[in-house]
């Protein structure tokens, strides 16, 4: 206990220790957050709220198509803004709102690069239209036509796949997998925003704590002066 107290006191006197502590707390927090994400996902899956569903690209009743022509699993866009709106109620065990954490699209583009492949979602029940603010882009895993979209945690009221930005684009949609589980270590993969946070957040936190320590010390000194 005495050692802990001594360490605690030394933090406020040694800036390096303060900064190191902030970094340690941030890293520990990040690991805990990842562990929580993993555990919560596993719990929701066990409860049946989050379920994996695989949709064949040849299915004709699950996607409402706009500016797209479908022949089996072959799709052809007829404008620069083709859309595929998923019938969430049909794929979610809990109906709508649905719990969609991840969308994996297995697709082969035949005659051109899609340009932009993104997923739009509705996080609120009162949203009539899709809003470009609520959109995620794929993290292409490999050059094998597998696109993975990670959505924010929470209930969704709509999900739309925009497969490209060109007219006349042809692609074979093998499947769309909703809620494909993430491997344990995937929860810990760093992202670029996280790296930025790693660089900035602990330093800023340490800076605030240092300010507070200085303010407290100044206040203490003032009080001591007042008493004498």
């Amino acid at each position, binding site marked *: 206990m005495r050692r802990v107290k001594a360490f605690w006191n030394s933090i406020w006197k040694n800036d390096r220790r303060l900064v190191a502590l902030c970094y340690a707390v941030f890293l520990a927090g990040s690991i805990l957050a990842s562990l929580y994400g993993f555990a919560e996902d596993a719990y929701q899956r066990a409860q049946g709220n989050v379920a994996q569903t695989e949709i064949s690209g040849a299915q004709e009743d699950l996607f409402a198509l706009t500016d797209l022509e479908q022949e089996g699993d072959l799709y052809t866009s007829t404008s620069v803004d083709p859309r595929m709106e998923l019938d969430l109620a049909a794929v979610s065990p809990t109906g709508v709102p649905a719990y969609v954490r991840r969308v994996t699209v297995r697709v082969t583009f035949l005659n051109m*690069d899609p340009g*932009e492949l993104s997923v739009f979602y509705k996080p609120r029940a009162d949203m009539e239209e899709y809003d470009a603010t609520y959109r995620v882009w794929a993290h292409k895993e490999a050059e094998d036509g597998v696109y993975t979209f990670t959505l924010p945690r929470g209930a969704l009221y709509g999900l739309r796949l925009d497969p490209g*930005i060109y007219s006349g684009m042809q692609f074979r949609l093998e499947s769309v997998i909703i809620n494909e589980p993430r491997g344990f270590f995937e929860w810990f993969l760093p992202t670029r*925003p996280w790296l930025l946070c790693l660089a900035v957040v602990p330093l800023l936190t*340490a800076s605030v704590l240092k*300010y507070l320590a*200085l303010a407290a*010390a100044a206040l203490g000194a003032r009080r001591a002066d007042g008493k004498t």
Partner: protein
Amino acid sequence: MIAFVEMTVTFAALTALCLFLNTKMRLAAGLTPLFVLCGTMVWYSTLGSVHMLVPAGIVWFGAAAAACVWLWRKHKDIRWREFFSPAMVYFLLASLAVIVLFAVRRPIFNEWDEFSFWGIAPKVVKTENQLYTYNPGEMRVSTFVPGIIMLDYAFQFLGSVFVPWKVYAAYDILFFAVFAAAISMLGRRHWHIAVPAAAVLTLVPYMVSVYQRGIYVQTTYMNAYSDIPMGLLFGAGLVLYFAPRKKTPILMTGAVLAVTASCLSKDMGFALCLIAAAIICFDLLFIQKEDVPFFRLKGLGGKLCWCASLVGAPLAAFFGWAAHMSVVLGSNRFDIGGSADMGMVQMVTTGIAELLGIGRTQKFTDIMELMKSAFFNTRLTMFSVGAPDSTLGRIFNGSGFITVLLILSILLAAFLLGDKRMRVRTAWTALWSSLGFAAFYIFTGFTYVYVFGEELAYGLGDYNRYIYPYYAGWLVLAVTMLCASLKNAKPGSLGTLFLLALCGGCIWRADAYLQPQLTVLDYPDSHYAGRRLQVEQVEAAKHYLTRDDKVFIVSMTQQGVGWFQLYYEFYPDVAVDYSFGAGEEFSPDIVRRADAMPGFFTEEQVDYFTSQPFTPAVWCDYLEASGCTAIYMDEWDAAFAENYGALFADGLKSGATLYRVEGAGADMHFVPLNGEEAVS
């Protein structure tokens, strides 16, 4: 990978020069990157203007090598602890992070003016190894001052090919150098002040230019436009001068280089650098008590010499570039043309006269009213709170007025926290920078009245982009003054929390307005999808062409942006005809303008092509006269196909993008090279 190595070596050379300045000249470590970069801009611009760009680069790297040798021999004199100050650590880490990020993501040019000048100019300079004025090719603008392009060149010097992301990295390194200078007075002991200050400064380019949460990628920190660099360079001279308390000759040399670099950043930079020079001169003459010797000259004489340098160097740069333009391009820098067809001096004198009510025109009154209204009502920065329609949102609306209030409040905090000398310094600086802003704002109004066409003038076209450079530089200056005051303020005083509050506020607004996936940090690959497709198509087309070919481009895009993009991509492998600037109009009903004709046409040829409708036969005559051997079809419409389709062997139906011009006169026709019907 090779580009990454080249960039890293150049950055290492820059760091060596910084270490030399810190060790030998005793310049604060945080100020050295800005000193070197401003010196680099001035050095390359000067030698580039006299056709000695390659020697300039050799000498620059030679100086870095010499600095390394000197440092090796005097390694015991290096004060590493002092060199790795918070400012220098920030500069090194931020710059290296950007170099690594860009080397991995490899962003390319995507914005309109990057193709018309800010991207094509460094490509031309790198390719030709000479200033763009000497051999501009089909560049439509070649009169812009060269400072920023020369900064690009310094980072492109190593390497055999032009690499676009190096341009962005060069800009960002300059930004970080300015920000590092702003916190350069803070030693390791003051790291807790440096951290939030660095966070605020890093956000400045976003804070002053983003006013709404967008749905497209926000290109700040990966954009070659010169407005933010110009604004930050305006602040650079002031930051260099005001950051340290002690004014030394080497510091003053840095300030002179910075105001000169500001003058060389853009035409408006001349006005900004004179404002910066005036503020510094006033402080030097009336506030600074200690001597600042100019060589051996001390006292007032020394100070006056520094003042003369601060004003004289940018003037020399301005008139030097005017002389260069006159000799090399045969154009007059003082003739700004525009709607009123005035010279620069005449514009200023007429504007001041009208401002004083002498011969005031209705247009002047209207536009100045619009400028006044825009100051209070136009949203241009992140300093807004709440929905635009709410009461709070209407007051704190991100307008110029709110931005100025914020900047002045930072200066007020600096005033309250500072000691007696700092208070005097801050008060006068606040006054002169405010008056400078008023002058700059009114001057911008003059340009709307006398230079812009009616539509742009009454719509205050690009108002935000013309105004926010001042806010950027001013904000950096204000943060510098605040840091300088905080350094000596009592620890724990309430005022010291102001910086933290400012930092928290900036992060709060940035979080509200910016989505990581729509910024430089994590933008999606698809951001460049259209451009990458274009690059692919052009590279494929190049296989069918040789250096003897000349390509006519049909690109019926808005304002002919397609032509500029294609010219950039074809350069320097294949010659491209100006093609009348492409654009949406391409029909037999129009008559071509004389200024769209090639410079080598005779008067008779110009008369011929500008005196009759642009029928298919006239187009064929033009192709023959201009020496075009191929046609690149970018975008066209059904009317074009109907009017000119007969000239194409495939009737424009094969999906080809490249055609060979064959035959002459009435027999001329275009044969597809890469479509379904192409002959292999």
